[in-house]
């Protein structure tokens, strides 16, 4: 593992030093990430397989209360594997994706920050010391900020970068408070001490829980803390969006799970709270996604939705812990954890696909695209697999994790009392609604972008991406299929992780998992039957049409023979019934200039759906803060020597205060 970290650090330094316009920088950067990923996955797989040889490394660190203490346990390994896989694949994709900027700009910094981001994410997962964790967390935020602002020439990208930077630091502020409170309570910064001691005082535990939900939730993208996601994901280069959305936001989920191991027995309302958060994030996330016209923004809102689904799983798990119901614990946490991996695969795939579309057709505007399936067959096929998977449909991986969460809710709700049954019932109804809306959203995204006729000049001249970009998408698509078809094996491998975080008896965990893997093997059987039937039908159809006339003509338009691409349904019209129904929640703004007269010439309709929490909650608050702070403008004048003086004065004042 240390070698992997060293390789990443080396990659970061070397690419920065070379900073050449040559493709060699890209290959060096991507190469070091790939090598590190391979090296890093070996111990992670060993730990997952239940090897007693847990890798652990401690080294003193001069920072107060800090220690360089890293360890791989099953929980870390479970998050580490998708992180490393997606980092490596996105890096390979990045080589092709960044080729556009070759010769125009040095690619050294972007690769350097990429390596740094992967390094810091890995460290966040490995760290077992509070200071080290916060340090890595901060490096992660800064590295990703610089990646988001890669195309800093554009005003909107800069603004997205600032929103991200502010949001992430507000989150970190809560985490700082969280870690300091924990450290004061236990007198240590060591995760192992925290896990062993646990927080005894119920009130303190609840305060810590809230701090963690806000702090980690900002990174994960809980509504309404999600404001940075729909800004930062579209602005970043696509392979970085894939990495940020696929795995970086999951460090928030990891943080929450790690927190639960410190806090002792949870009261009932924690589970309720998480289910409520999950429902809001899930439903509102997918609704806002439906209303978007920008492909990457749409995907960003879907990350909010999927984080919601994961949180529903965790909430069900917490309810299980509070009431001592092993079924809920195993299936809730298990489903949430599996969805973490699944979301990394299909969301990574979809963002890479969106990047290929942007690369090939030059626009992210869904209503300007169309007909790309003929022009970009590989991207289209893999995007379709991602779309089916994210809609939670069999036989792919998204169905499996949602199945676990549903099964947990149904099983847990069979005979439980109202305090458990009602939230679980809300979970079932909510998850069903999310599933239906997600299918609506992805038929829109896939159908309008890849099917029909091209809606603009750009789209009709689109070209397929090269192999460096196709290969990662292909691997991720195969991953989605494999997890779907080998679901019982994958779910079985959750055993060590669940034992690790739930403190249940190994026999209880494996018993409950076995009760899950048997329906899953029926599902796999169903999937196999489905595929066999499909093959039979394909042969049947071929046989039937073999010696008959098969003609090609234009699409039926009530006899109209000169259809144009502009007559097609658009993404906005496709989503309009749903966005209208949920209009009060979305606040979509419409600007209509209706046709006039007998021979109308011009008519227009423009809809925008700004983020409601961004517009109504944060903007007024931040404008007020801005007003107040502008009175302090005189302090900031750009003279470095005076800034140094400020630091010196502050230190002296602090020293005096301490010695007083």
């Amino acid at each position, binding site marked *: 593992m240390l070698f992997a970290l060293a390789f990443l650090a080396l990659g970061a330094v070397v690419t920065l030093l070379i900073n050449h316009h040559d493709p060699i920088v890209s290959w060096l950067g991507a190469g070091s990430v790939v090598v590190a990923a391979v090296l890093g996955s070996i111990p992670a797989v060993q730990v997952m397989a239940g090897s007693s040889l847990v890798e652990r490394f401690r080294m003193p660190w001069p920072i107060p209360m800090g220690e360089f203490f890293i360890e791989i346990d099953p929980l870390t390994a479970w998050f580490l594997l998708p992180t490393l896989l997606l980092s490596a694949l996105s890096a390979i994709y990045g080589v092709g994706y960044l080729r556009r900027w070759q010769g125009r700009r040095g690619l050294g910094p972007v690769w350097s920050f990429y390596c740094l981001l992967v390094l810091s994410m890995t460290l966040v997962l490995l760290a077992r010391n509070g200071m080290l964790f916060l340090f890595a967390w901060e490096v992660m935020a800064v590295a990703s900020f610089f990646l988001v602002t890669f195309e800093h020439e554009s005003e909107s990208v800069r603004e997205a970068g600032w929103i991200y930077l502010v949001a992430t630091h507000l989150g970190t502020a809560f985490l700082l408070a969280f870690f300091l409170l924990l450290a004061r309570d236990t007198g240590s910064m060591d995760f192992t001490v925290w896990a062993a001691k646990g927080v005894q005082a119920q009130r303190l535990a609840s305060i810590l829980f809230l701090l963690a939900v806000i702090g980690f939730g900002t990174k994960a993208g809980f509504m309404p803390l999600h404001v940075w996601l729909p800004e930062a994901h579209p602005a970043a280069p696509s392979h970085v969006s894939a990495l940020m959305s696929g795995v970086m936001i999951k460090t928030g989920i990891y943080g929450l799970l790690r927190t639960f191991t410190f806090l002792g027995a949870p009261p009932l309302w924690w589970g309720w709270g998480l289910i409520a958060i999950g429902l809001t994030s899930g439903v509102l996330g997918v609704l806002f996604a439906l209303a978007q016209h920008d492909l990457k923004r749409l995907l960003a809102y879907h990350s909010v939705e999927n984080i919601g689904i994961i949180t529903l799983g965790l909430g069900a798990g917490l309810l299980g812990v509070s009431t001592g119901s092993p079924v809920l614990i195993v299936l809730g946490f298990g489903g949430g954890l599996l969805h973490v991996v699944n979301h990394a695969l299909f969301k990574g795939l979809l963002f890479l696909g969106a990047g290929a579309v942007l690369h090939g057709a030059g626009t992210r505007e869904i209503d300007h695209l169309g007909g790309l399936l003929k022009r970009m067959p590989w991207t289209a096929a893999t995007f379709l697999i991602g779309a089916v998977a994210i809609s939670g449909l069999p036989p792919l991986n998204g169905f499996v994790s949602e199945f676990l969460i549903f099964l947990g809710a149904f099983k847990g709700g*069979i005979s439980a009392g109202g305090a458990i049954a009602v939230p679980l019932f809300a979970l079932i109804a909510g998850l069903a609604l999310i599933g239906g809306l997600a299918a609506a959203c992805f038929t829109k995204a896939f159908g309008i972008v890849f099917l029909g006729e091209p809606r603009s000049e750009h789209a009709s001249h689109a070209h397929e991406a090269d192999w460096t970009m196709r290969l990662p998408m292909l691997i991720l698509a195969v991953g989605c299929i494999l997890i779907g078809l080998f679901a019982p094996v994958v779910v079985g491998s959750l055993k060590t992780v669940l034992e690790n975080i739930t403190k249940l008896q190994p026999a209880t965990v494996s018993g409950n998992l076995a009760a899950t893997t048997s329906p899953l093997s029926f599902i796999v059987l169903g999937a196999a039957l489905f595929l066999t039937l499909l093959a039979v039908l*394909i042969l049947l159809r071929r046989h039937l049409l073999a010696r008959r006339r098969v003609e*090609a003509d234009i699409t039926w338009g009530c006899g109209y023979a000169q259809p144009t691409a502009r007559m097609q349904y658009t993404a906005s019209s496709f989503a309009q019934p749903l966005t209208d129904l949920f209009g009060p929640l979305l606040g979509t703004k419409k600007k209509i200039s209706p046709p006039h007269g007998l021979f109308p010439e011009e008519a227009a309709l423009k809809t925008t759906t700004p983020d409601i929490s961004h517009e109504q909650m944060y903007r007024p608050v931040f404008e007020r803060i801005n007003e107040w702070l502008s009175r302090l403008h005189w302090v900031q004048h750009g003279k470095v020597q005076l800034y140094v003086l400020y630091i010196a004065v502050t230190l002296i004042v602090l020293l005096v205060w301490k010695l007083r």
Partner: protein
Amino acid sequence: MNAISFIPLLLALTLSPLLLGVINRTKAFFAGRHGQPLLQTYFDLWKLLQKGAVYSRTTTWLFRAGPMIGLAAALTATLLMPLGKCPASLAFPADFLLFAGLLGLMRFFTVVAALDTGSSFEGMGASREVFFSALTEPALFVALATLVRETGQLSLSTMFGQVSNAHWLHSGPALGLVVLALMIVLLAENSRIPVDDPNTHLELTMIHEVMVLDHGGPDLAFIFYSAALKLWLLSALVVGIVLPGTGDPRLNLLLAVGAVFGVAVIVGVIESVMARLRLMIVPQLLVGAGALAATAFLLALKLN
């Protein structure tokens, strides 16, 4: 799995097209017409299977794959649906989730195949299809959750096996509301009046029919057959709850088949006595179904 468990499958495969015939004859009876032959759907399927095909130049392989994926999903779903007290070929805990998932998969590919034509009509139908199905999904799942709670069983086959007269006596209101909610789901999912009118001839007002406007020949036969299967499956879902068992398995089966056709007659009656709702009103009906199911769940919570 034994030989008996294949009976629901075989009955569904052979008898489902007859359901449409029954619906049409019922409607003809109300209209005072003689109506088409009961076996008309079989004739249509046979005729379509003999034909060639015409494809739009806009379409791709996806348009051709859509009907096959839909039919494969419907056939797999048929394996999961019991008929009355007779268990399904595949029964396992939470099999209804796979059932719902397969119907979702079928819908997904019908919708993208429709969008593949680039036609505004089909886009419109596709848009309404996903709109309505997103609202029926919660109603279906909540109704199922109520059933799970009522019967204490997790598989459709054991669930239907459990339902008895005693259940109806003990918690009749909850079960009644579930049946009502599922009936609305059935009408919406199978594009029947009051949600959609299968007989309309105006593209602008169609939902399901317009999505398959450009399909022809064997592809259309696949689509018709999957639609017939879907109608059978959802009818069987309603029947399984309504029908209390007798001691005799053969009589049970006969009753169940009769009841499925009874559902078809009810659908025919509904179509004869009311017009379809305006598109704006349909969501209210569907959300209403969800509300009914939610009330049923709360009742189930209290009575236990």
